[in-house]
């Protein structure tokens, strides 16, 4: 994958396990968001291809098998929370009663108050916006959930509680989750598998223990230690 003359992501045979939570981590510009954007088809690879198990060539159909959450939520400002979540189900002319059941389920899952469903994005707090964004991503009950720094813009208190909620949600749903973060503690807390990237290349992938105990190169330890010392401060 290249942007102009800059290689954003070198060829990689990265495999993402189904039904598990994979966290992509690395410093800014390492290509972790690019991987998500390639998966959901917002970018087309210059070379090679992205294979999604069970997905065909139809980009729109493929996207409906995935949920995508970004840092600021990417909510549609002209629609209220309910309309944001139900936009796709309505577009697919799903049964009204089924949609409402799904909405109640999602509100329970994400701890979002049903009363707040009538509010517009501008009337919601940052945390609430991310909950709505997550509900919107899950509305069609996709197999895959892609999250690009979903908690990046939240204050530490909200962030900590949402981290716990996300862990619970991921465990309940059993979906294939790919999440991007630059926060090692968040990765350690949520991930089944961590993929550490640097300058468009995968440095190492595996569980936190594997990364710590068998680092592929000294950089892996440096990255983990740098983050850990920050956390201890």
């Amino acid at each position, binding site marked *: 994958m290249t942007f102009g003359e800059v290689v954003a992501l070198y060829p990689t045979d990265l495999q993402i396990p189904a039904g598990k939570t994979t966290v992509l981590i690395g410093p800014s510009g390492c290509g972790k968001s690019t991987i998500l954007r390639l998966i*959901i088809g917002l970018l087309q690879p210059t070379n090679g291809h992205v294979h999604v198990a069970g997905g065909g060539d139809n980009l729109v*159909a493929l996207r409906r098998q995935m949920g*995508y959450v*970004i840092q600021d939520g*990417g909510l549609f*400002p002209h629609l209220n929370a309910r309309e944001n979540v139900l936009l*796709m189900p309505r577009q697919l002319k799903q049964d009204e009663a089924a949609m409402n059941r799904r909405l109640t389920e999602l509100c329970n899952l994400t701890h979002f108050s049903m009363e707040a469903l009538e509010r517009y994005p501008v009337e919601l707090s940052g945390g609430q916006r991310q909950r709505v964004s997550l509900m919107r991503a899950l509305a069609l009950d996709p197999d895959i959930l892609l999250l690009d720094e979903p908690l990046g813009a939240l204050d530490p208190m909200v962030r900590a509680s949402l981290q716990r909620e996300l862990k619970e949600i991921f465990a309940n749903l059993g979906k294939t989750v790919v999440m991007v973060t630059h926060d090692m503690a968040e990765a350690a807390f949520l991930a089944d598998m961590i993929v550490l990237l640097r300058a468009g290349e995968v440095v190492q992938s595996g569980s936190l223990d594997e990364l710590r105990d068998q680092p592929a190169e000294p950089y892996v330890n440096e990255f983990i230690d740098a983050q850990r010392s920050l956390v201890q401060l």
Partner: protein
Amino acid sequence: MMLKRFLLIMLFAWQMMPAQDIAIGSKRFTESYVLGEIAARLLSEAGFETTHRQGLGGTVIVWEALKSGSIRMYPDYTGTVQEVILKSDGPVSPAEMRKQLAEFGVGMSEELGFNNTYAIAVRRETAEKFELRRISDLKKQPDLIAGITHETLDRDDGWRAMCRHYGLTMTNVRGLDHAISYAAIADGSIDLMDAYSTDAKLVEYDLVVLDDDLRFFPEYKAVFLYRLDLDPAALAAIRSMEGQIDEKRMIALNAEAERSNDFGRAASLYFTKAGEAPPPETETTFWEKLLGWTLQHLLLVGVSMFFAILIGIPLGIRASRPGKLSQMILGVTGIIQTIPSLALLALLVPVPFMGISATTAIVALFLYSLLPIVRNTAAGLQNIPRPVRESAAAIGLEPFAQLFKVFLPMATRTILAGVKTSAIINVGTATLAALIGAGGLGEPIISGLSLNDSQTILQGAIPAALLAIAVQLLFEGLDRFLIPKGLRLEAENLKSRV
């Protein structure tokens, strides 16, 4: 639902327009209006339905209208036929004129009885002070300020040719509207002007007409030009005017038109026999006329805006994407906007199926209204933040659904602002439609200009201004209904933070 109601209103408005029957044209000066009115009355007495398309922009516009059949007849002058229509250098005999006109399918009546030639007029005291009696006398006074009508300045047989013929070296020449020239010469801002020899104002302002001693001006005998396929009974009715109006009578008719501000009333003087009581002052009240003008104006604005929105928004959507085509769309609509509106109207008249009609005016107004709509639609779509744009794609909406469910609703405010700008410009520009006989509130403005009567001008200008304000208020109300609530809350939030 709203669209249906709108179309019904449009349909109703179309039916309000006068029936299309024998259309009579006239040019934009008092005498032409009056002769047109007389013809209309003669035809209706002969049992024909008529429409008087009065005050058309100039010889070219009226002539094109006659050729294309938008009008069936109009009054003109032999000199104009020779110089402007047949573009002949020397004198042409009436028989030769008829032969050449026949090639266009046009016939010419016998003379109506008066010669309304061009004349050069000065104030009486100027004439006495500089001893001016003949045009040749001007050679000694090259510093006098001349106020000359635009058409005469530009015509081959006009001002410049006259100066060459007489060897005049006048340096202070201004282009003026004919009616304004009288006010200008009366208050002394100009010293001499071109006039028509049957102008009632020559008598009213006590001006001296200089003798055309070197026989420069051709004869301008009044005649009617008509299409050869005109109904013979209608032609006979018009030809009853032949030889009936001499200079004195025409000046009286013109004077009556300027006194009463009512061309129809002046025309009825033609039908009044000596000793008979003059007809009642006015037939239609001012309010009825105002209603007619306003409805016609709204029709022009409504139809042209309807199509401008229908075409402008899709063009704007296309222009919001990068590429050469987008630059072309914005470029072309921008260039149209820079063409002076009068020039655009004049350019459209000779186009097939256009002529002098409401259609032509609507096409011109439509073209003018495009740019703000196209530009704002494109800008509104381009300003949608990338995360929102990408989310619309990522959640699996088809491109069309992305546009209609997300992008267009988010651009509503900007698009509406563009439509509002267009509508306000449109209301103002539509006053020019009267120049090509399309009616509207421009009609009193233009006849007021040719009568030099500011009260008549205001009868059109004030309602037009009020209409523009009403349009502005209408759109402010529409904002509430059409801009999605979430976006309005967002805007209020931003305002309260600032």
